């Protein structure tokens, strides 16, 4: 099954298929792919006439596919929110849509490219239509991009607007947006406006512009693992001022500590950062930071750290302690763990 990102990169070079069925959680990628298909298929200047959009799976869309286009080139027929990949025995609408598509797939029109977008995150491999679409190589997954891909996307997006995005700034934004391309673009738009006429977009500017909310939790973990109480306190207060929920901060700290624990175990087995990155599915530079952090905090202290976070979590969720105080105390205790080790 081709991935949307790869298809997007090679779209200009390859032959466009008569049918594409898109699915997956990354909507921005899906929109970009649809734009690319329209750009390649439809003759410039004929977009208004030859790009036709339908909602759902009306039989008219197949009729439109078989109608010759206006002027030169081909037509793109878009079916948004299709139920073609829907399942279930009683889902008659989905069954009808699948039937129509399979009949069209047997003899597609040379005049058109049919693009069907399905609002599902996964394709059910048990469905006959999915197997047939896969065989025809028309099923395209718009999945979450890897961090490297998202960073490349961000850099290219900025370059397209005449800005140079520093690598660490790209990583900061991508991490903060959890690789969601739509959010990455929005944060970049804000950052570019914040920066004004400056060509180079740096990490400092990204931080000052408040781009990529949530990423400061990583700064908090770094400060905590280093035992830097002042820094940890200042980042924590900043997060709380931004309106981050204390329970969320505890969760993020626990998540990061889990990664540190896994890293510590892998490092103890002699694994290099690149291997760690592969196993933990994080970029290499993140793995490097994790290896450093794991060495700093020490594996022996991690169970105590988890206990502190568990206590804070229970205190917040059962109302035993004021949530702000619970997270503040937990942060200080975590910092103390490191200080006591020294």
């Amino acid at each position, binding site marked *: 099954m081709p991935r949307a990102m790869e298809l997007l990169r090679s779209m200009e070079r390859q032959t466009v298929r008569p049918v594409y069925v898109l699915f997956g959680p990354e909507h921005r990628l899906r929109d970009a792919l649809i734009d690319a298909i329209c750009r390649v298929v439809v003759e410039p200047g004929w977009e208004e006439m030859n790009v036709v959009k339908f909602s759902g799976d009306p039989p008219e869309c197949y009729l439109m596919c078989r109608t010759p286009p206006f002027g030169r080139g081909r037509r793109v027929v878009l079916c948004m929110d299709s139920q073609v990949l829907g399942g279930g025995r009683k889902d008659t609408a989905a069954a009808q849509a699948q039937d129509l598509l399979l009949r069209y797939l047997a003899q597609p029109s040379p005049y058109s490219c049919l693009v069907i977008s399905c609002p599902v995150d996964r394709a059910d491999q048990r469905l006959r239509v999915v197997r047939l679409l896969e065989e025809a190589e028309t099923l395209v997954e718009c999945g979450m991009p890897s961090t490297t891909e998202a960073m490349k996307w961000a850099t290219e997006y900025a370059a397209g607007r005449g800005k140079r995005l520093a690598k660490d700034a790209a990583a900061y934004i991508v991490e903060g947006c959890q690789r969601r391309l739509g959010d990455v673009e929005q944060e970049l738009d804000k950052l570019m*406006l914040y920066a004004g006429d400056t060509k180079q977009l740096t990490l400092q500017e990204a931080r000052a512009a408040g781009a990529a909310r949530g990423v400061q939790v990583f700064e908090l973990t770094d400060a905590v693992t280093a035992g830097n109480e002042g820094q940890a*306190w200042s980042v924590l207060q900043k997060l709380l*001022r931004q*309106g981050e929920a204390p329970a969320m901060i505890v969760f993020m700290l626990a998540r990061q500590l889990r990664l540190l624990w896994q890293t510590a175990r892998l490092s103890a087995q002699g694994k290099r950062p690149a291997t760690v990155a592969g196993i933990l599915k994080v970029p290499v530079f993140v793995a490097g930071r994790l290896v450093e952090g794991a060495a700093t905090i020490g594996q022996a202290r991690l169970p*105590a750290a988890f206990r502190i976070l568990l206590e804070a979590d229970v205190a917040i969720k059962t109302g035993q*302690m004021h949530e702000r105080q619970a997270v503040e105390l937990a942060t200080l205790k975590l910092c*103390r763990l490191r200080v*006591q080790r020294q």
Partner: protein
Amino acid sequence: MAYTALYREWRPQSFSEVVGQHHISRTLLNALKHDQVSHAYLFSGPRGTGKTTVAKLLAKAVNCLAAPGDRPCNACPACNSITAGVSVDVQEMDAASNRGIDEIRDLRDRVRYLPVEYRKKVYIIDEVHMLTEPAFNALLKTLEEPPKHVLFILATTEPHKLPATIVSRCQRFDFHRLDIKLITDRLQQVVQARGANVTPAALWTMAKASEGAMRDALSLLDQCLAMGAGVVDVGEVQGMLGQAGEDAFEDICRALVDRDLGRLVRRLEAITAAGQDWRQLTLGLSQYLRDILLVKLCGAEAPVDAHDPARLDVLGHFAQALPESQLYQALETLAGVEEAIRRTGRGRLLLELALIKLAAPVFPGEGVPVPPPEVAQDREVPKAPIPTGGTPPRETPPSVRPARDDLQCKWEAVMDRLKKSRQMSVHATLQPVRVAWGEDENLQLVYAREYDFHKSRMEQDAACHRVLEAALREVFGRPVTFKISGEEGMQAPAGSCDPKADPVVKLALELFDGEIIKGT
């Protein structure tokens, strides 16, 4: 002329006047300068941080007739009419009271028409998270592809309640809580302009109480100025807020350091006489102890509020005198007290009990408390108590049955233990119980009639029995058997055959000059 509240009078009229949201002001100013204003914005953040203010500024700026770099000019007819709230092209809508699909359909129909007076029609939808799901769906299409002459500004304090489809169609800006210093500076500016006399410490207290919300801070100042002429000092502000002064916290901490129960009780007595709110007092004391802990951990660089250098010295003194373990213990205890006050409303009793326990951390008959295992090796072991004001602790022999008050304390310890060992379900089942010793050395757990469900659960659940038995054994240091009964089946508590001996009965008799009548 009608009085205008300070927060309205001092609402910023240009982006440069907006306090503490530099990242947003600069971005929006650049967007205006380069004509890159988005079609929809989402302003999110805590209350009183400037969301509606910036929305109104943006509405003015996009319609301002001045050159792009000077917008809003506050001099042109567009700026004036929008400031006065009379422009038909700027519509402010409260989504909390217009939350249905009909209102959004109406809005959708109206957006098609061109602006009447100026360049853009601006719709400010406040508290947008209150819209219903169908209303959000109706808004979705308009938000996705609005006409070129329309600008939507959505404001909310709870962005997580918004559908992702709405958020992704807007340029989102997160407003931050304001720093105490920024709020204090702004209040100072207002005070100066008014020619009022407010001490810096009073301003700082107001800024702190506002929890990062400028509107709250200005409202507090408004209230203080309305109290009368003369100097507004910290005492008046604290009185208005129902807060205890820092001298009260200092006194309590001194009593904790010296283990001076007499001073502690006297201070609490004074607080009671002043009619202060116990929950506020607990929160204030927690804050004060937190500051001491920070000074202890971070030294002079501690990120505490040090508007007055003398305060830092006092905090430093306590930081030296109080061990870290005691500070953590105190903070945790006070957090529990605050929660219990919220639940039960018995502020004085709970706080007094907690502070007395903290001043004398080893409870009579309990031995030295063991710190949690994960930090046991690092924590300082609390010193044996030297209660100066109270009676020396008596060791209760395990065979001797404790007196009734003592039993109450032990029962509280049992409940504490259940809570700490996360036996929340058993804890909840035992919450309404009254305890007393039965004639046959059994501990009687008595449920009132309305707690039949709790009683039957306790009677039937063997697991509950096991958990309670274990907790009782830990607290009493020996196995204790118990009986569960309803109010009607309750035996008279041992040693209380004479009702006159009961302190509550005694007090009631004294108060109402009553007599005891034996019922049938």
